[in-house]
C-alpha cells in the first residue's frame, strides 16, 4: 500500500475514533440505566454458584427477558430518558410506576421523535410508519401478559428477586390470584433466603390482601434483619428495607401495639432517613399515643 494511502487510512481511523468518542461521551450520561440486579444478588451469583459460562448465559438471558418485558408492556414502542441538555431545559420524566418493582423508564419521550421535532425528514417519516410508534405518553398493554415472562425469568435465573417480586405483584393486583402470588414468593424465598425484597413482599401480601398482621409481622422482621445484613443496599433493597419498617409499624398499629409501632417507626426513621412515609406514620402513631394517653408524654423507650 502506498504511503499516502496508509496515512489516509490512519487519519480516517483517528477521525472515526474521535467521532465515536465524541458520541459516547454525549450518550453515556443520557443512557445511564439502573443496574438490573442488586449487590446482594450479584454477590450470591458470584459466590453461591460457580460463574461458569452457562451461569453467565443464564444471567444474560434473564436480563434480556427483563428488558423484553418492558418492550412488551409498551407494545414495542421505545422510550428514552431525557438527555442532559433536555434536563437543563426543565424537561423531566414523569414518574411512571405501574406498581411493585416494575418501575420503568417510559415517562420520557419516545425514542423516535414526533414529526415536529424530527430533523430527519423522510427517514423520520418512514421510521414512524415502519416501527412501533405512537405520539404522546406511554400506554401499557395488559400487565397480566407479562406474568409468564417473569416465571420464565425465575426459571432461568432463580436469583432474580425483582422478577419474583414483580410477578407476585401482577398476580395479586391484576390477575387477582394472591394465593398464587404467595406460593411464587415462597418459592423465591427458598432460592433467596436473605432477600429483604421477597420477605417484605410476602409481608405486604399478608398485610394488604388478607389483613393477617400476625403472619405479616415476622416477614417484615425478617426483611429488616436481612436488610441490615447488607452493607450497601441497592435501590430495590433500600425501598424494601424502608417499606418493611413502615408496614411493620403499621401492622403493630393495626394490632393496637402502639408502643411497638412507634419504636419500629423511630428505628425506621433512623435507618432509612430518606423514607418520608416512615416519618408520616411515626407522626400518626405518636399522635394516636398522645390522644390515647394525654398525660403520658414519655416515649416508649423511656426517652424524653
Amino acid at each position, binding site marked *: *500500500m*502506498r*504511503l499516502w494511502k*496508509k496515512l489516509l487510512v490512519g487519519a480516517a481511523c483517528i477521525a472515526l475514533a474521535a467521532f465515536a468518542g465524541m458520541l459516547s461521551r454525549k450518550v453515556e450520561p443520557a443512557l445511564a440505566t439502573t443496574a438490573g440486579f442488586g449487590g446482594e444478588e450479584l454477590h450470591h451469583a458470584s459466590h453461591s454458584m460457580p460463574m461458569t459460562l452457562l451461569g453467565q448465559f443464564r444471567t444474560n438471558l434473564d436480563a434480556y427477558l427483563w428488558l423484553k418485558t418492558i418492550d412488551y408492556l409498551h407494545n414495542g414502542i421505545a422510550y428514552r430518558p431525557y438527555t442532559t441538555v433536555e434536563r437543563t431545559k426543565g424537561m423531566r420524566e414523569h414518574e411512571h410506576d405501574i406498581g411493585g418493582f416494575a418501575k420503568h423508564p417510559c415517562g420520557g419521550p419516545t425514542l423516535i421523535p414526533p414529526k415536529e421535532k424530527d430533523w430527519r425528514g423522510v427517514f423520520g417519516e418512514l421510521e414512524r410508519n415502519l416501527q412501533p410508534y405512537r405520539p404522546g405518553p406511554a400506554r401499557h398493554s395488559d400487565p397480566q401478559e407479562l406474568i409468564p415472562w417473569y416465571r420464565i425469568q425465575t426459571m432461568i435465573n432463580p436469583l432474580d428477586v425483582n422478577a419474583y417480586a414483580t410477578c407476585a405483584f401482577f398476580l395479586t393486583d391484576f390477575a387477582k390470584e394472591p394465593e398464587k402470588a404467595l406460593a411464587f414468593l415462597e418459592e423465591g424465598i427458598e432460592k433467596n433466603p436473605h432477600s429483604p425484597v421477597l420477605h417484605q413482599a410476602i409481608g405486604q401480601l399478608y398485610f394488604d390482601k388478607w389483613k393477617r398482621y400476625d403472619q405479616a409481622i415476622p416477614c417484615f422482621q425478617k426483611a429488616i434483619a436481612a436488610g441490615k445484613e447488607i452493607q450497601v443496599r441497592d435501590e430495590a433493597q433500600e425501598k424494601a428495607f424502608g417499606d418493611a419498617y413502615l408496614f411493620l409499624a403499621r401492622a403493630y398499629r393495626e394490632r393496637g401495639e402502639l408502643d411497638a409501632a412507634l419504636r419500629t417507626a423511630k428505628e425506621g426513621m433512623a435507618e432509612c432517613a430518606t423514607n418520608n412515609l416512615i416519618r408520616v406514620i411515626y407522626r400518626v402513631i405518636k399522635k394516636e399515643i398522645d390522644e390515647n394517653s394525654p398525660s403520658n408524654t414519655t416515649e416508649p423507650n423511656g426517652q424524653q
Partner: protein
Amino acid sequence: MRPVLETEHLRVVFKGSSGQKKIVAVDDLSLRVNQGEVVGFIGPNGAGKTTTIKVLMGFIFPTSGKAKVLGYEAGSKMAKSRTGYLPEVALYYPFMTAEEILRLYGRLQGIGKKELSELIPRLISRAGLSGFEQLRLKNFSRGMLQRVGLAQAIMGDPDLLVLDEVTSGLDPVGRRDLRNILKDFRSRGKTVFFSSHELSEVAKLCDRVILIDEGRVIQEKSMQEILEMEGKQGSLEDYFVEVVGHKVT
C-alpha cells in the same frame, strides 16, 4: 494476410508497492500473428509471456500501446466470442463435474441448450475425459484439469486459440491428443497462439516462433528457418539457449 492477433508498442508496467520500484513486464512489444498460423510464444521465466497473453484476453490493461484480437480491441466481447483461451494455471470450480463446467462455459459462450447436449459428450471424448464426466473436478489430477481446460478452450470452434503453458501437466498421451487437436485446427485454417516451456512440443506444433525476453521481442523465426540453421543449432532448444542462454528456464 489478415492479422488475427496484433500488438503495437505494447507496454505494461506494474506499480510496485510503496518503497518498491515499478516493474516493466512488457516493453515496446510489437507482434503480429496471421490467420491460419500456429505460433509458439517462448521466452524465459518472467519474460512477459503470460502478461502479454493476459493483455490479449483483456485481463490486464496496457500502460501504453495497442493490442487487437481478430480486428477488435483486446478483451472486447466480440474478440472473446471467437477466441478460445486456456489459462496458465487451470483452476476450475472444484464442486462441479466436467460435464457441468463445460455446460457453464458453453452457456457463457452463448451456445444453445440443444447444441450443448450434443457438443459436450464430443468435447469430453476429444479431450480424453470419457468415463470421468460425472466426477467432481476436485478429484481431477492436474493433467486431467488441463484436458478440461483444453475442452473449454476449443468449445464453440473458435477462430483463434490462445493457450498459455499449453503442455503443463499433460502426460505423453495428453500431449499427443493436444497435437492432434491443434493440427486439426491448423488444417481448418484456424489460428493458434501458444506459450510453452516444452520446446520440443513447440517444435512439433508450430509454424513460427516468437522469442521474447524482458518484455521485448528478441527474435522471430519460422520453424523452417530454425531447422535450416544446421551446424549452428540442432534444435529449438539449442536456438533458445543460444539467444537467451543466460536465463534459467
